[in-house]
């Protein structure tokens, strides 16, 4: 008897789940995404799911999106790709062909966005993604892919400009980069920026994505007695690198900087006082001067995000929220749900948001300067964009003199 009730219950649930979307299909626009909710990238993947959801809830609470003379609510369809690129590609195909989502939001990380965006292009469904910065994503002539992270090639541009104005200015540099598409892009651009600035590339090493041991690279860096280390990779590797720097007593004469990790609260929590003096970068800070139609401004966005999810947003989250807002804006402008028309609307859009002024280049990628940040006494301090914002703690003291 119990079993029968159970079966009946399941049948009712299945029927309900089959009927529900059909009943609502008329007035709902679904945004689909496959995001890293588990696996090695889950720590950053969560920013995207949470930011997408928060932005969608906020837009719906304000009345939804007006397309033509009809008002729609937004809905999020998010799948967990388990930090597996191959699975994420399959999930985007599933989102389009089985789940019939209207438009696509992106995954985290360049190597995912690189593969997943091909699905969007193939099916001609616009994808706005805030997780992939590699220029490779945008140099393939794709028409349906847009991105809110600035080009990876230029991540170190503002840092190198700042280094030129330091006293004494670093002359020899060690570049340490992971071997995935984002970091290869960063390294390629950084080599060019260093050459333009007349700085010597004394050590140029690539490590395998996911490496836990940097002792060989650090020994080479130490022997080269460089003035600066420019490092790019993933947050967990950045933590390992700094801890091993201290263990092997590696002290560049000027500074050491990282593309990722430094702006997150996790980074400071994991390293404690050893996080001090590290330079990093961010394309976004929760600044009240960034006005937003739905959230008011970036500071209010950050406060609402923190209150809802119990951790602070960083640029990944702001970039993700801007992707949802891009669709809301473009849909109203296009006045249609037709993917081609929405795509054209996105290409010509320009609006102020909590993240930045959103405007996509001809290749689909936004252009934004990176703000150089430094951790000073356990606090994240913005240092430089095109000029100094705050005083840098420079040069960095040796590990045993702190």
């Amino acid at each position, binding site marked *: 008897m119990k079993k029968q009730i159970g079966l009946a219950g399941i049948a009712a649930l299945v029927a309900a789940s089959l009927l529900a979307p059909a009943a609502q299909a008329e007035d709902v626009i679904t945004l689909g995404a496959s995001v890293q909710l*588990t*696996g*090695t990238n*889950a*720590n950053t993947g*969560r920013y995207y799911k949470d930011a997408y959801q928060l932005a969608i809830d906020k837009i719906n609470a304000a009345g939804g999106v007006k397309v033509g003379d009809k008002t729609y609510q937004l809905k999020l369809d998010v799948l967990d790709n388990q*930090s597996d690129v191959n699975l994420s590609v399959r999930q985007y195909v599933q989102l389009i062909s089985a789940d019939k989502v209207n438009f696509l939001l992106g995954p985290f990380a360049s190597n995912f966005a690189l593969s997943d965006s091909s699905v969007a292009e193939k099916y001609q469904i616009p994808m706005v993604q805030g997780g992939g910065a590699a220029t490779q994503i945008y140099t393939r002539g794709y028409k349906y892919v847009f991105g809110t992270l600035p080009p990876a090639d230029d991540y170190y541009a503002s840092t190198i400009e700042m280094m030129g104005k330091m006293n004494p200015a670093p002359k020899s540099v060690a570049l340490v980069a992971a*071997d995935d598409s984002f970091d290869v892009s960063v390294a390629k651009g950084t080599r060019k920026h260093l050459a333009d600035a007349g700085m010597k590339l004394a050590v140029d*090493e*690539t*490590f*395998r994505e*996911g*490496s*836990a*041991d940097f*002792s*060989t*690279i650090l*020994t*080479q860096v*130490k*022997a080269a007695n460089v003035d600066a280390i420019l490092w790019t990779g993933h*947050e*967990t590797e950045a*933590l*390992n690198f700094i*801890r*091993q720097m*201290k*263990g*092997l*007593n590696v002290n560049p004469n000027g500074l050491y900087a990282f593309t990722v990790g430094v702006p997150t609260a*996790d980074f400071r929590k*994991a*390293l*404690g006082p*050893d996080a001090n003096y590290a330079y990093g970068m961010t394309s976004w800070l929760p600044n009240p001067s960034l006005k937003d139609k739905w959230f008011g401004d970036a500071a209010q966005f950050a406060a609402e995000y923190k209150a809802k999810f119990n951790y602070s947003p960083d640029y990944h989250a702001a970039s993700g929220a801007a992707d949802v807002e891009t669709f809301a804006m473009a849909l109203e402008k296009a006045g249609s749900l037709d993917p081609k028309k929405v795509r054209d609307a996105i290409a010509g859009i320009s609006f102020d948001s909590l993240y930045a002024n959103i405007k996509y280049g001809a290749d689909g990628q936004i252009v934004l300067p990176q703000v150089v940040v430094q951790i000073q006494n356990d606090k994240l301090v913005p240092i430089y964009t095109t000029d100094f914002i705050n005083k840098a703690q420079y040069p960095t003291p040796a*590990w045993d003199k702190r």
Partner: protein
Amino acid sequence: MVLAQILLNGILLGGLYGLMALGMALVWGVLNIVNLSHGALIMLGGYVVYYLFTIGGIDPFVALPIAMLVMFAVGFLLQYYLLNLVVRSKMLNTLLITFGLDVVLTYLAQLTFSADFRTINPPYAGANFALFGLTVPSVRLAAFVVAIVLAAALWFLLHRMALGRAIRATAQNLVAARLYGVNPSVLYAVTFGIGTALAGAAGGLYGMIANLTPYIGASLTAKSFVIAIIGGLSNPFYVIFGGIFVGIAESLTALYIGPTYSDVISFGLLVVVLVLRPNRTLRTS
């Protein structure tokens, strides 16, 4: 000088590698189980030390033996209630069940500990001293010493104590061991418990050198597997030597060929060892 420093780095790292593989080699050699969840057990051991340190305020090196006891209990229960079901069956069954166990442990760890990065960061974690112009990271040296001490303890247990004789006897001849009053299911559980305790110690040391996340297990299993085969399953010290060998090979590869090729070399070594000395993997204990 760079070369000497890199050799030193490789040797110190290799000691820890050896300790990681020690538990796997023991379980493989005695129970004939290739434990694919070994890396996940290392990860769990790391979290035990992490919480003893951050919440309990216990120094991580003092926490190591406590974590080993906890992990011994975990391993004992896993073997007694789960793995004993497949202990004498085909290799494929043990591979499947330990692979499943790896998935379960990894995702339980994510649910319980979250995907956040954890580091076991005592004030002396970055301490180092100079020796003949080389920089010796103190924690890595301590981890190396712990690995040697545990290998020696395991050797002593297996070769000089009654329990060790019983373990070896069971591995060599189950029927004869039974006739002498050995209860195999308890003995298997004890053996697996010892292997898990060693994994736990390796996890605590790993957390002091690198980061803990729920996902570190798979790559540590792979590394332990390579070292267990290169070192052989017969003698704990050979496993430590295997670890040091792989540590040096990886460091030299990073120096001369490039850090992206480290794994190619360690798995390449595995192939070479299997081709040249296929009998090395046979149980000789």
